[in-house]
Every structure is written in structure tokens, then in C-alpha cells.
């Protein structure tokens, strides 16, 4: 075995066998930002056989405070983050295969990007994309490690298909979290992403070497307070991904909810993914839940205190609420789902 990995082999429970597994592994890193660069560099040092780096953005000066690996030359050369990461990783370990792909992950490309991967690492603060990765990894039964870092707060968790609760089980829907903190409103410092990246890397090699001690919790850290907590990740009975329904993969998360310029309370949901729906079919489905009436132009559905009006192009108006997240949830539950 290559001399360079002696110390790591000594530390790994699986020893040389484990190192061989790492050298035969293929890992896809989605997001080469503050977290992804830390994780990717550690994976390269550890001798992962194939690393695929995915990111479309370019390196900017403001990234230098948090992103490991990058320097001022990268900014001057206007290098895309994935390409800059590839260049630096090659100077760290020239023996492994590294590939960069400059795209934004979306429903049309995610399955191809992760195909043949043994593990996916997500270092992104973008909620909808995490839900998308979750769907794709669940569908193709690929384990993935989530990581997020905003200001002093970071989270990571492992999602092992058929063995642990998934990202959607734990986080529900993109909108329930969207309005809390983002890097834009709360900022970022490097220690948070370094720790999350380090934890992600550790979990990655545990998963790849077949360790029985992989983490099954949601780990949260606060670097300012110096705390790390394990929160139990629970299965969610209503989780669509666990039921084999991949709504984000089908692009349905792109449905948009907007409060109407209507003095009453109402929210309109537009879904670009539904072009034509059959009102009689929906009526049949919904009549079990509430009162339904329809004509050739629209369908009116009353249940509890809600009134939902559905149109044949898939748009819907939710009355008696100004809560956009709730409208989207109801939409996915009753119309788009």
C-alpha cells in the first residue's frame, strides 16, 4: 500500500482493506463552496479514487474569507469554483481522478451527475437543491451526506437509503426553512464550514469503508458557543421521498406561491410543471376529502376553513389564507401530489 496513507490506515478501523475501498470509491461533491472545498480537499488527501466536483459559480473576493483552497490568483483568473477546486486538489493528490463539471444541479441533470457514485456530498445552503439531491439519492439508493453552514450555526446528517430517515423526513419542505437564516442575511465565517466539512469527510469515509458506527442523528453545531449537539432524526410518515414519490426530481418544487393583490386573504400557486389537468379527475379525488364543484373553467373545493380554486392549467387560488408556505403544502398535498 502506498506509503502516503500509512497514518490513515493505522487510524481506520478497516485498515488496509478500508484504504483499498476508498481508492476504489467514486464521490460526487455538489457545491464547491465554504463546505465543499473543505470536504473535497480532505477526500483527495484520503485517496478517494474518483472525485467529481460540481459547481457553476466563480470564485470572488468575498469567498476568500470562508472558502478553503482558493486564493487571490483564482479570483484574478475568474476561475469557476469547481475548476479552481480541481486545480488545487491535483496539487494535493495527483494520483487520483478528479473531474469538474460547471453546472447548476437541477431536476434535468441531477440523476446523470450522481450516476455510478458510491457517495454524494452536498455542501450547499440552498434548500430546494438539497431536497432535489435527496430525491435523486433516494431513487438511486446512493448514500449522501448533507452539510450546511450559516454564520456560527452548522448542520450535517447522513442519509443512507433504506437505513436512515431522509432529508425530507427531517426538514419537511423547502419553504418551512427558507425564511430563517441565509448567508445573505446572517453571514458566514470559516470555522463553521471547516467543522461541518470535517465532520462530513469523517462520515464519508465511515460510510465508504462500511463502518457500523455511522452517525444516524442530525448534528448541529454553534462555533461561537463551542457546542455540538446530536438531535434524533425521525422518520416522517407523510414523507413523499420515502414513499417513492420524488416531487423535487419531477421539478414540482418550482411551484410558486404569491399573495394576491386582493384585499381579502388569498394566495395563488402557479406550477410550471403541470400544463393540463383534468378537473373531473381532480374532483373525483378530492370529493373524498371535502365539497367539490366544477365547470369547464374551474373547480371549487371546500374543506375545513379553506377554499381552493383549481384551474385546468394547474394554477390554484387558496382563499382565507395569506400563508404562502401553507398554500404550497396544500397544493402539493391535494393537487400537485
Amino acid at each position: 500500500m502506498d506509503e502516503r496513507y500509512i497514518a490513515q490506515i493505522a487510524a481506520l478501523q478497516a485498515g488496509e482493506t478500508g484504504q483499498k475501498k476508498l481508492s476504489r470509491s467514486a464521490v460526487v461533491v455538489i457545491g464547491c463552496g465554504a463546505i465543499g472545498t473543505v470536504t473535497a480537499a480532505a477526500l483527495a488527501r484520503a485517496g478517494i479514487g474518483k472525485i467529481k466536483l460540481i459547481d457553476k459559480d466563480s470564485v470572488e473576493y468575498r469567498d476568500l474569507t470562508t472558502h478553503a483552497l482558493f486564493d487571490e490568483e483564482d479570483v484574478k483568473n475568474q476561475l469557476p469554483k469547481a475548476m479552481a477546486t480541481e486545480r488545487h486538489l491535483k496539487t494535493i493528490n495527483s494520483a487520483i481522478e478528479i473531474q469538474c463539471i460547471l453546472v447548476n444541479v437541477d431536476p434535468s441533470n441531477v440523476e446523470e451527475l450522481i450516476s455510478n457514485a458510491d457517495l454524494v456530498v452536498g455542501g450547499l445552503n440552498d434548500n430546494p437543491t438539497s431536497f432535489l439531491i435527496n430525491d435523486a439519492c433516494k431513487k438511486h439508493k446512493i448514500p449522501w451526506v448533507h452539510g450546511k453552514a450559516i454564520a456560527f450555526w452548522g448542520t450535517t446528517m447522513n442519509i443512507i437509503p433504506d437505513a436512515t430517515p431522509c432529508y425530507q423526513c427531517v426538514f419537511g419542505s423547502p419553504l418551512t426553512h427558507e425564511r430563517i437564516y441565509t448567508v445573505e442575511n446572517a453571514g458566514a465565517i470559516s470555522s463553521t464550514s471547516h467543522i461541518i466539512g470535517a465532520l462530513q469527510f469523517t462520515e464519508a469515509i465511515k460510510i465508504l469503508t462500511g463502518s457500523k458506527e455511522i452517525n444516524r442523528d442530525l448534528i448541529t453545531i454553534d462555533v461561537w458557543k463551542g457546542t455540538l449537539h446530536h438531535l434524533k432524526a425521525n422518520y416522517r410518515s407523510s414523507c413523499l421521498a420515502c414513499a417513492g414519490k420524488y416531487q423535487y426530481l419531477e421539478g414540482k418544487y418550482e411551484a410558486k406561491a404569491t399573495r394576491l393583490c386582493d384585499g381579502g386573504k388569498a394566495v395563488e400557486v402557479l406550477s410550471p410543471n403541470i400544463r393540463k389537468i383534468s378537473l373531473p379527475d381532480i374532483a373525483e379525488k378530492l370529493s373524498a376529502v371535502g365539497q367539490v364543484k366544477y365547470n369547464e373553467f374551474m373547480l371549487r373545493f371546500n374543506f375545513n376553513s379553506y377554499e381552493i380554486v383549481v384551474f385546468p392549467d394547474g394554477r390554484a387560488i387558496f382563499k382565507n389564507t395569506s400563508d404562502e408556505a401553507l398554500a404550497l403544502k396544500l397544493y402539493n398535498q391535494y393537487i400537485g401530489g
Partner: protein
Amino acid sequence: MIYVDNASTSWPKPEAVYTAMNDFLRKNAGNPGRGSHSMAFAAAQVIEETRMLLARLFNIPWPERIIFTLNCTHAINIGLKGLLSPGDHVITDSIGHNSLFRPLSKLERQGVKVERLRPSSVNGSISPEDIEKAMTPNTRLIVVTHGSNVTGLVQPIEKYGEVVRRHNITFMVDAAQTAGLYQIDVQASNIDLLAFPGHKGLFGPPGTGGLYISKRTSLETLCEGGTGSYSEQEEQPDIYPDKYESGTVNSVGICGLGAGVKFILQQGIDNIRTHELKLVHQLIEGLSRIEGVHIHRAKDWEEQAPVISLTIDGYAPSEIGAILDQAFDIKLRTGLHCAPSVHKLIGTFPHGTVRLSPGFFNTEEEMNTVITAIEKIARSRI
């Protein structure tokens, strides 16, 4: 596709507007008034030409007293906030847009007293007599909406102007729905402040508008900065229009606005209005025959701008808008149209109305299609 949302913004624009903006941005888009090179001169010339055209349109004797703004809302804000101080009394109507009511509400919190007159006459306008009765020794400003953006009611600004002038009070007009459609003569109507959008009846692009400030009126500035003139002075120069036009103006937008005004002057403002009113008349006739359709409009045909609202029994306005868009490809606006108080007057608060505002480029055939579509919807009520 049928576009009947011209009260929001006019579309399409005359071909000359597209061409002028394209040419300008390619050839003449230097920074107007900032430099002694030919491109800066050319840009300044286009802007001054637009000012001249607007002066012709509104019978303004001093073009430099027209200042360019981002839109009509911006113009109204400059007028109200530049003029009023705590303790001042303001009289306004109840058919206005939030662009007028919201800045007034803020000023009210700062100590300005605002009196909102309810329509007194049968036709829905406020009466000149009521304005006169509401005046106090502290009345500083009368500000009225020329045309309602919900019902299309046009108020008699020239009559208000007479009253206001007798009392030597500042008179401001919000011409959001009427500029480019009605002959507005600032001298004949004694208008001191005329706020107008560039992107509606004047056929300019979004991001354009203006405010005329009469010689009787002086406004505090809301924004100071570079004007390209008197640069050695620390204070904002006290000359028009520089005083109120700090920073680089929207030259390409103003160029498009100029082309729009030229189009109006060529076509003739009366011809444009006549065409649009003919379409509105056709809509009113056709729609009022349909059972379950209620039209909200000016009571008197003479006071009707080419904007009307409607409601249909059994449907919320937003539902009708969605159906017209997707099943018939008809584009219009629904809801409150940013003018909540007029809906309280006509009884359509809080859900609002469906608004139809045909433009110069709509045809009678299109209006028939709209009527047929609304008839189908009204008949198939659930």
C-alpha cells in the same frame, strides 16, 4: 393574445418607440450634461427635446420646469414631500391610488392634516363647492386624481383649478390615467403640480415619468447630488430642472418617452381617446346585456376614461382573471388595483374587480372576443 391592461402599462408601444430607444442606446447614449463630447451633447439634446414635446402636450410655457422621474408615484412623492410641512392642511378625494394615499398617510403621521372628500355629486366626482367648504386658513394643497384607475371616472380638474386659484392654494393633479388621453392644459386649469407616468398613455417605457412644477410653487428637494452644473458649489444648484434631477437620468427611457409623445402629437390626442372610448363603449354595451355581470364605471358617459371594472356573480375577480388568461389568452388585471378606497365607495372591497383597459392598438374584433369570453364564463357559473 389580447392585452387589455393598458391602465397598468400600455402595450404594445408604437414602433417608433422601439426604434428610437434602440438607436439611442447604440449611438447617442453618452451622459447628458456631463461632458463636452458629441455623445453627451446628443443625449442632452434628446432629453431636452422630450421636455419640449411634453411642454407642448400639457401647454407648459417653461419646459425646464418639467422634471423627469422614475414613474408617477415618484413624481407624486417629490411634490407632496417637497411641499408639505407639519401643520399644513391638505384636501384630497377618495378615488385615489395608493401612490397618492400612502405618502399622504406618512405625512399625516408627521403632523400634516389630510381631509379626504367623499364624492358629493351623483356622478361620483367631488364637487368644487365641497373643496371650497373644506378649506381652512392652513390649507396648503388640493390634490386630486384626474381619472380613476378602477371605474374610469374623470374629474373636472379645470373647475377645481378655478376654485383653488381664487384662494391662492397649491393645486396638484395626478394624471396617471389621463396623460396622453385628455387635453391637460396646466395654464387653463391652474395646475401647480402635474404628476404623470411615462409608460401608460404617453407610450414610453416603464421607468419613466415626470412632474411639472409651476412658477408659483417651490419644492424642497428630496434628493441632492451631481447635476453636471455648478459643480464648484457645495449646495444643490437652484436652477430647473437640475435642482430636482440629481444623478444620471434614464436617458434611454426618456428618449423612448419622447418618441411616444411625438406619436401622440402626430395621431392627435382626441383621435386616440375617441378610439379607446369607442372600444370601452362597445364593452359596456356588450357586457351589460350579460346576466350576472356588473359593470363599475363612471355614471356619465362624458366622464368616462377607457377603463372599466366588472364583477360576475358566482366568481371572485381573481378567478375570472385566471380563467381569461389561461382559457382565452386575455391579459387583464384583477383585485384592488392599489386603490382600496374607491372599492369601498363602489362596494367591491376587499376582493376588488376585474379591470378592462383597452388601448390604442386594440381592435373592435378583440373587444367582441372579450365579451364572448366573459359571457361564457358568466353562463357556466358553478
